[in-house]
């Protein structure tokens, strides 16, 4: 079986050893033959001292080389660690290449803009690294939302929907998300939703919400979502519960901020166990105020 690399020769057979050894030995032989003992001793001392000096110098150079090697390895550790994550490594390489290309452009104005933008990007990446994704003023978050609802290891979804206007989640992206909810229920996900209703959408004394909101709630009930309801005024003493949020299993929590027309201002998704615990605690408190839609239907019965 062939060896993996070239065969290593013994250092004793190398020219680097044999040459100096032969020259030194010949010199010492001549000195011993021709010179008196004092000279022989002086030559021997000089040779030993030269050897010592060479050794000390070698050690110093080696230490310097070690330092430089360690620094190099340290710099290489980032791509080495990322190499195990192909999707991230590809992005890393693209960014590095772009930075090298940028470095080749000396224009100081361009460089200034680039540094500012890069600082912003770095901040976003740091947030991502902390498990937080922010979707500003866009419905793009719904793609991630639907990915979470189809994730096989997420078996439950607790949602708090703060409905401040009719037509909540009734626009095309909202309808699409509702369909994702119903598909998830069909696959076996448990979806529990507390609907927080502004009081004009569920006037005091009315057995059920009014208008389109009722149809929206009934649709969810029909599709197997466990719906509970609470009036906004009931939460006056608990302002931190007035929030549009969702807890996806024990993996992530999402908070949606809407404008007065129900359009998304910001959606923040946190993949952080501590944030999930806090959200679950808030959700549990919220359920204390809520009554199930099923119970409200019971109350419509003559003896209810």
């Amino acid at each position: 079986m062939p060896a993996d690399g070239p065969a290593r020769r013994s250092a004793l057979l190398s020219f680097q050893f044999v040459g100096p050894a032969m020259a030194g030995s010949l010199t010492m032989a001549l000195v011993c033959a021709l010179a008196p003992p004092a000279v022989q001793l002086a030559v021997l001392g000089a040779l030993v001292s030269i050897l010592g000096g060479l050794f000390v110098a070698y050690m110093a150079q080696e230490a310097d080389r070690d330092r430089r090697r360690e620094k190099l390895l340290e710099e290489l550790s980032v791509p080495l660690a990322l190499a195990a994550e192909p999707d991230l490594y590809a992005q890393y390489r693209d960014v590095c290449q772009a930075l090298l290309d940028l470095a080749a452009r000396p224009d100081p104005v361009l460089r200034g803009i680039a540094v500012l933008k890069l600082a912003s990007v770095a901040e976003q990446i740091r947030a991502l690294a902390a498990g937080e994704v922010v979707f500003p003023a866009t419905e793009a978050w719904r793609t991630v939302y639907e990915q979470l609802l189809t994730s096989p290891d997420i078996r439950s979804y607790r949602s708090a929907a703060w409905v401040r206007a009719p037509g909540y989640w009734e626009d095309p992206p909202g309808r699409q998300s509702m369909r994702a909810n119903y598909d998830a229920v069909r696959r076996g996900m448990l979806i529990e939703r507390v609907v927080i209703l502004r009081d004009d959408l569920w006037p005091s004394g009315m057995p059920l919400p009014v208008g389109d909101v009722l149809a929206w709630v009934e649709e969810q009930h029909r599709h197997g979502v466990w719906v509970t309801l609470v009036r906004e005024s009931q939460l006056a003493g608990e302002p931190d519960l007035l929030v549009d949020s969702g807890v996806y299993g024990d993996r992530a929590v999402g908070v949606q901020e809407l404008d007065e027309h129900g359009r998304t201002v910001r959606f923040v998704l946190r993949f952080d166990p501590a944030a999930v615990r806090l959200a679950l605690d808030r959700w549990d408190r919220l359920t204390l105020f809520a009554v199930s839609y099923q119970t409200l239907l019971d109350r419509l019965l003559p003896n209810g």
Partner: protein
Amino acid sequence: MTDSLYLDTARLGLMSPGARRASHDLARLAGAEGGSPRFDRLLRHGAGAWPADLRRRYPGLAGWQGVGRLKESLRTLAGSPPDLPVLLANRSAELVRLAARLLFLRSRTVLSTDLGWPAYDAILESEARRVGRTLARLAVRRAVFEDGLTPGQLAEFVADQAVARRGDALFLPAVTSDGVRLPVEAVVRAVEARRELTFVAADGAQDFCHVGPDLGRDYCDLYLAGCHKWLGAYHPMGLAFYGRRRTRTLIEATVAGLLGSGELGDPLLRFSGQLEAGRLDGGTETVSLAGLFASQAAADDAAGAWTTGGSAGRADNHRAVAELAPALGWQPVLLDPGFRSGILLLRPDRPHLAAAGGEELRSRFLDVGLALTAYDGGTVRLSLPDTPLGSDTISVVRSALGRVAGPADRAAAYGPNGGR
């Protein structure tokens, strides 16, 4: 050979007179008409849509007035409100799958007991695994059979367990295969006083037309039953009654979704829905319809002859047989009166019967004029009728129990037997 006294209704009920006539005339019609338009007209619109001569020729089918009327008759027997639907299926297990889906749809933990029918428990377990939730089976059998638990205590126990285990749905047999009548409504009320239930389903296979139900009392979201036991239709047909208005749209949407996806594959379930709506799509597989006609006739027979809650006659029969059995070598299994139904279990005193196989024991009873269910180990199950047993009938029971038990020192070996 004379007819035996039939006390095996819990396994398969005797065919009622009307069901017999309907089945006989259906067989004659099938021989004469096959699937002709005349048959189609009968199936869709009932005998009223037939000409008079056909009605005279097949008088056993005169009661058939379409699927809607059949469902109306069944609802009346179940005490179900007229506006709540009832589903018909060839296979009861399909309806149990539907119940399992609905139970776990919005629940983290479904509570059941160790008194349920094992095949149904297996379906519940399978659904629990599919969705990654919990089926908590409460151990109450020993307390009911041996420790003298009362229905009230059972209801409180289940309510306590619902709180402790955070149970939020309930599946109970209304009457178990061994005759324990569970107080389903009392259990539901006790649990709901402490904790909200998302869904309640009851297995009424041994309950329907025997003890209960009274679905108008709004305590059960889905009640499963069958036509071939206590109703007396003989042809197996599964029933699922909607029991609460609050879950009507939920069940309707779930049934539609499961039929659409093919997860519910019962042909009669699909076909009967289309028949009732008058919209046959022509794509349904060929369905056995004998159960429809027999069930309508049996329901007509049962109407007025049976009352929810069971009659005093059945309780008297239970008491009469329980009193005579000990002197004949059989010990009645007597539960708290609140748990008793028309099913009576007798355990043998004789050691040779305790070692007996059920199939052979059942044959020996039949040989002496009594049809009943027998289990390995010698226990027998008598399904007592609603009408009071006359002295002649009591004599048959006494004679059969005494002759099969025989002398105390007799030994025999018997083969296996089973059945619900």
